[in-house]
């Protein structure tokens, strides 16, 4: 405890890219240079932010390539927290008559790659950044398909909280009735005491019925 107190009092915490002599950034640089040579790191020391920027060109067999300006923003909590990907030149616009959300992009160009609790990001994986960029490439590929017909190719959650509700239902083995009862608890919209009746209708106390399951799912939601 004393050492920790001493550390906190004597100087600022180093940004992630300088910790351990910058070993993580160095490893990521090698990974990017070997797999995505069109991208380059940029460090803003003043803001202590790191960016990975450049074009990702999606190739087709016929030889027509589509270049998409891409930016990854590395949060200060990286690598515990995943980077955030952006369509930096705002290449992708809302499909006529539809919302930008329908193509899983925000108005700032941020990519909604997945529902946060479903993130495949593994901080300790040395190839985590490569796997992340592979997903970004697949995301761009799907954006190009969406451009062609306005239909998102492949599975997607509904927007906003409804997506989380679908996640809860998946976790509850697609039991719609149970989801109706428990989703408000998971999403913090309802509180039930440990000794109250479980909302699932079993007539058992909550603590002896679904409390543990609700807390487990809620932990995954809250973490993100």
């Amino acid at each position, binding site marked *: 405890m004393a050492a920790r107190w001493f550390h906190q009092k004597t100087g600022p915490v180093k940004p992630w890219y300088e910790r351990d002599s910058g070993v993580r950034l160095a490893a990521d640089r090698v990974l990017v240079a070997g*797999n*995505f*040579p*069109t991208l380059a790191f940029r460090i803003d020391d003043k803001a202590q932010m790191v960016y990975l920027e450049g074009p*990702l*060109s*999606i*190739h*087709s*067999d*016929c*030889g*027509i*390539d*589509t270049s998409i300006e891409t930016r990854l923003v590395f949060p200060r909590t990286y690598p515990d927290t995943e980077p955030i990907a952006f369509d930096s030149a705002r290449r992708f616009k809302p499909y006529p008559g539809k919302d930008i*959300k*329908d193509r*899983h*992009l*925000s108005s700032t160009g941020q990519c*909604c*790659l*997945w*529902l946060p609790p*479903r993130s*495949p990001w593994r901080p300790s994986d040395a190839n985590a950044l*490569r*796997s992340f960029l*592979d*997903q970004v*490439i*697949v*995301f761009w*590929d*799907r954006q*190009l*398909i969406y451009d*062609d*017909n*306005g*239909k*998102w*190719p*492949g*599975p*997607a*959650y*509904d*927007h*906003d909280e409804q*997506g989380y509700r679908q996640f809860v239902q998946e976790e509850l083995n697609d039991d719609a009735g149970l989801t109706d009862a428990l989703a408000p608890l998971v999403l913090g919209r309802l509180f039930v005491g440990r000794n109250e009746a479980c909302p699932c209708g079993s007539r058992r106390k909550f603590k002896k019925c679904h409390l543990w399951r609700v807390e487990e799912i809620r932990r995954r939601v809250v973490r993100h």
Partner: protein
Amino acid sequence: MSWNLQKSVERIQKYVADLGEIQVEKLVKDADLSALLTPTNCRQVYGAHVYVDVPNFSELASHAEGEDFRRVIQAIHLYHREVARIVENPEMFDGVRIHFQGPKLHALFFRPIDSSEDLAGKAVLLQIILRRFVDRVFNPAFPLLPGLTISGGADLGNAIGTKNGLAGDRELLFLGAPANYAAKIIGAPGQMRVTAAIFSALPLRLRKLCSSVADGVYQIGTTTSTELAEICDEMGVGWNSDDSSERLEEDKRLFPLKSVEYSEADSAIDLDSLGVTNNKRVCAASLFADVSGFTKYVDAAQAEEDRKRALKVFHAIRKEMAHVVKHDFSGLRIQYQGDRIQALFHLPKNEDAAILKKAVETAAGLQSSMEYALKQCLPEAGPLGLAIGIDLDVTLVSKIGTRGQRDRICIGYGVENAARAQEKSAGGEVSLTQRAFQLLDEHFQPQFNLDEKRNLYVASNFYSDRFERAAKAAAYGAGAAVTVRTASKTATVVRGGEASGRQVVPSKNWSR
């Protein structure tokens, strides 16, 4: 087999480099155009362009079967033979049969050189005579067929004449407003029309036969036999119905119904082997691709250098379109029709959906060549775009005429509908008829949007990469894994797992 950007660019660069110096001079004296014109030796020809169509043939070719179908084939061949004689015989019209576009004749009158009155007069008289020939000679000679009706259109002015090659069957090509507009004013069956340019050049007697039906369009009225004979005498056109009837009967003796054969096609049709005794009846997708805006582009090219540049662009487009159809997608190039190409796809036999998919993939290849390869090699082609129409139906495929002057013909509803779909399309569009759309694989259908006004399913920016992506959409839809491969400059996503890449399970996306 598929289209590839790099190969397309290399082809076009080679063709442009090999093309040689183009010459475009005004035609100032009589000449045999099929001998004079080459891809590089072109002429500006002042003349009257005439189109005469027999719309019934398409209906007959699509519906008749057995002996009736053989009778239709015999009628088509004999009609073409006699009409070609009427147009080309020096004692009759002394004109040029550019070609038959299926049942539609395209003829040119340019003799006497620059004589507007004579040329316009011939354009009107040919339509009157062909109407008389069909009514009085042809229909009575084929009593078991429904009565044929014809329609026509004619325009007068300058067009640039060129040719598609030096060897084999000739294909004269004419570029410019009169060669285009004459076909556009064709009206309903029975209506024969001319433009204001023809009308104003006509001798008074013929002008009196015409009445205005629309802005700048005039309709040719009826004539009595006596009037027609007098007009023929005045114009030195030696046609009469008795001679035509005799020639037709002689042709029927030469090519009796029992000599007419037709069959289906299990393998690619050898177009050169076709003729009156060997015809094909296939379920086929017809594709028409037209260089939208090219007529204006040519007409705007007033300076000699501009015309040369326009012709270089034209030949590069023409050559590339033919290569894409024939070699990239194993289709049949039926005909060049000015700045338009007609193609046919009939394999695999009787597999309508697969045939249509091939035609649609070809359309994507043609659009890709135009937008990505041609405009890269020839930036002056920038304002141009391809308008493409596709339909599928039973089609008669044959070849008419004599050696060296033979036309490949396709006749049927599918051909007519594809041509009409193309004519209703703008540059950059691929249009499908309702029947064609319904046959299209469900993964490709979302690429096309219904245009209710045109009653067509239309796709814009439909290139080969988009065709590939439409196929890939199915894999994404099934939630299957894909493979990502990265190289020095590009990243490729392919369907399924491959050893040479990294397998990725596409995420289930969400939006906040």
